[in-house]
């Protein structure tokens, strides 16, 4: 029994092969999941959507590039973390804390180790985000927004999912 269960168990998987990406955007980057591991890549100035990890802590190790990383706790009095992170650094993102990342001009690549074998992420913006699941009336009344503003909050990123391309009006795309 052990031989069947353990000895032949596959315990290695390559997550850098772009063909295996679970989420891919030519302009923004990709996310490759392997059970509890993820290897997202952000192109220059792209965003990793603000989100929280529902059931796990996330231990983020930077493999390449830089990013501005922001983490917000439940008090909301100010960022728990708002710094540039670079290759070789580790940041622990506590469960339920909201995190957002904006890649620097050379892009950003990292691997996240999650403390749960089936980690769940809840994005705040874009496709499958919490705002998509809320009625517009709830959004409008929660934030004192007009119906039009509420609609924009809900659909502002269209069908983009988790990794967002930089917006032209942001003016942050670096000159070559």
């Amino acid at each position: 029994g052990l031989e069947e269960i353990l000895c032949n168990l596959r315990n290695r998987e390559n997550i850098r092969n772009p063909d295996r990406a679970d989420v891919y955007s030519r302009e923004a980057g990709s996310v490759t999941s392997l059970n509890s591991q993820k290897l997202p890549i952000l192109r220059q100035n792209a965003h990793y959507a603000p989100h929280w990890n529902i059931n796990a802590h996330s231990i983020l190790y930077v493999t390449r590039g830089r990013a501005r990383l922001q983490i917000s706790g439940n008090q909301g009095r100010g960022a728990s973390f708002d710094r540039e992170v670079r290759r070789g650094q580790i940041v622990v993102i506590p469960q339920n804390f909201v995190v957002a990342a904006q890649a620097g001009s050379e892009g950003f690549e990292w691997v996240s180790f999650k403390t749960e074998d089936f980690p769940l992420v809840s994005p705040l913006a874009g496709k499958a985000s919490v705002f998509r699941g809320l009625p517009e009336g709830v959004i409008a009344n929660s934030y004192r927004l007009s119906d039009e503003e509420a609609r924009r909050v809900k659909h502002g990123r269209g069908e983009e999912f988790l990794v967002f391309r930089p917006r032209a009006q942001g003016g942050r795309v670096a000159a070559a």
Partner: protein
Amino acid sequence: RQPRRQTERREWRLERLEAVEPSRRIQAEAGVIEYWDQNQEQFQLAGVAAYRTTIEPKGLLLPYYSNAPRLVYIIQGNGVTSSVFPGCPETFQSFQQSEPREEERRGESLRDQHQKIHRFREGDVIALPAGVTTWFYNDGETPVVAVTVADSGNNANQLDQTLRRFELAGSPERRESSEGEEAFSGNVFRGLNVDVLAEAFGVSRETIRKLQGHDDRRGNIVRVERGLQFVRPERRQERQEEEEEEEERRRRRTRGTN
């Protein structure tokens, strides 16, 4: 729940049990939340926290999530609630129809889609997973009163034993404790930069400042003066479904459980 780790296990002094009232009260525009002191020994050892929520008619308990799974018991009143599960489809939909509905004839647009909404009433128990966003709305005539017990010792919670509410909206929150102390806190957007959020959402900085709740002193239960509009089955259809569910429950009771 798994047994606690050996290092966390402490002697439960059974002779020191006592009945306690809530010790902290957070008043909002259209309701109040009263918290029991979760630092009290019996709550600490049981690994739970408790609070009682009162939502006035037309009151909306703003979307929030917490680090522990919760059971909510509806003591009084009725209304609607929804939990937003990431990745689940927006199955309640209303698109332009050839036959305009009554609300649309009155000029109220109902073209929207969102996740499922559930009606609740007195006596209901609602189970809420950790980390999942939930909101409640009182569309009844009487205040909704609900008592919630959060299982902060649950495996789903990998933070500390303290129950933490992550508010998605509503700020600043004015807190009053039995000692008369006051504290203010904000929603999760307050901890993120305005420009980063404006880019991420694809909206203006002004809209982001509203998401962050600057100058919003309504707390986390707000009054919806004109009533809340959302997509839902007709009340008649809802009642029929409720009656069918009740009939099914009755049948199951008479058959016994397998």
